[in-house]
């Protein structure tokens, strides 16, 4: 298998086939919380892509050079990663506040939300322990580039679904929905149908 194709499959698998929102059902709270309008979902998506890739890069280094050599990774990865992600988000917030006020205004409100976003933790965990959330014991660990590509896939999948879903919800607001289903109930139903649709990707390219 050539290298580029392998990376593409890794990316595609993370983004579409095993979509973090619709197939793995991780990070459902931002999925419903910020999908109310297209604008906020766009802001959230950009922030998530940015933070997820950074968080995974740093936690990959922490895992491979500190936790794993010390032999404490197996039970310490959650507190360690949370510590890393929370500090990283704080740090990033400070840096962009100083260096790029427009970017801060666009992403600022979402950054603190992402600090405790489980999708970020999930991506970081999966990139050091592949197959963890699918309960597969894969005796393989990603290299640095692989884990970045994988995380980028997860984040892009998250963003894609969040944005599409926000667009659908904006239309649903104007649709003649029965009174009892208006608002969140119809959003849940839509998400379920959406999830079913995404199951159609299962097995694509043998993934």
């Amino acid at each position: 298998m050539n290298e580029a194709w392998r990376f593409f499959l890794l990316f595609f698998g993370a983004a579409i086939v095993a979509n973090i929102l619709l197939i793995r059902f991780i990070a459902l709270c931002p999925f419903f919380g910020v999908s109310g309008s297209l604008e906020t979902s766009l802001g959230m998506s950009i922030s998530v892509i940015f933070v997820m890739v950074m968080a995974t890069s740093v936690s990959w280094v922490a895992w491979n050079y500190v936790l794993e050599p010390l032999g404490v990774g197996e039970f310490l990865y959650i507190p360690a990663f949370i510590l890393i992600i929370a500090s990283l988000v704080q740090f990033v917030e400070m840096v962009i506040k100083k260096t790029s006020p427009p970017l801060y205004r666009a992403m600022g409100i979402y950054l603190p939300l992402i600090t405790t976003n489980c999708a970020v933790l999930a991506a970081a965990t999966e990139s050091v322990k592949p197959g963890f959330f699918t309960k597969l014991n894969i005796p393989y660990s990603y290299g640095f580039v692989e884990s970045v590509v994988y995380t980028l896939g997860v984040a892009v999948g998250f963003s894609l679904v969040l944005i599409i879903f926000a667009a659908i919800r904006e239309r649903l607001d104007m649709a003649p929905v029965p009174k009892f289903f208006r608002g969140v109930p119809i959003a849940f139903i839509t998400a379920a149908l959406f999830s079913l649709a995404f199951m159609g990707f299962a097995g694509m390219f043998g993934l």
Partner: protein
Amino acid sequence: MDWSLIWKAAIALAGFGALLGAILAIASRRFHVDVDARVEEVLEALPGSNCGACGLPGCEPAAEAVVKGEAPITICRAGGPDVADRVAKIMGVEVGSTVPLKAHIHCRGGASVSPIRAVYQGVNSCRAAEIAVGGGKACPFGCLCLEDCAKVCPVSAITFDEDCIRRVNVKKCTGCGLCSDVCPRDLIEMVPADATVFVRCKSQYTGKKALSVCKVACIGCKKCEKTCPEDAIHVENGFAVIDYDRCTDCGDCAMVCPTDSIQLWAARVGHPEGGEFILPEGKKKGKGPDYAVDTDELEMAVAEVSAEEAVE
């Protein structure tokens, strides 16, 4: 049990904590952004409910806009004069001429005095009724009684009774002006809170025509205009309008008004709505049912208006 694991774990986590803490500490110095301290103070002074009545996304953007000078210190409609005062103190400016406002509804035609010409059964909203057929009320200028203003009022200061008489509770009214924005007939005016003389009609019809659609309409007789010593009240488009900059609250116009369209507001401390509309002391009580119109005087005034119109 392998005790070394615990040591290693403690060292690893403590190491991470120390390292990240140090990085954050340095970064907070290195990337420190000077935020105007007044923003925080103004934010403290604002109600903090992020209601959005000012047109900005919330209280923090509002505070920033005030400090930058992009917004007036009176930006907070919900907070009213109290908040404006506090913000003014922080910003070191005078509130100046921002008199507190309150809503006044220029219509007192209830169901018993204003006949209906149709039964409106459409969407339960004044704006919808106005667009559709102009509602069911005979008077094309009066209150439609579908309570859009009451629904939009964030403090429930506007109430309607069974006779569709609407009242503004001046104790509750914050002067935000949301009701004034929604009224499709433009009946709600934001007046200075200390005003006492009110024209309670906005009918553009004059004389008999005005009375045919509402027994308590302003007939445009201009008696008030002639009486006013301060030139503060004028009949425009068929109804009297008070210029509150000039009005001295003498109440002479209310005294001569033949339809009692001009009334005085008596602020009462114990009153649940903060006061009520009254007629000036000594005004002749008429024969009308729930309004004090002197019918003889009224007929004369109507005749005068008709004569004037005939001349024109």
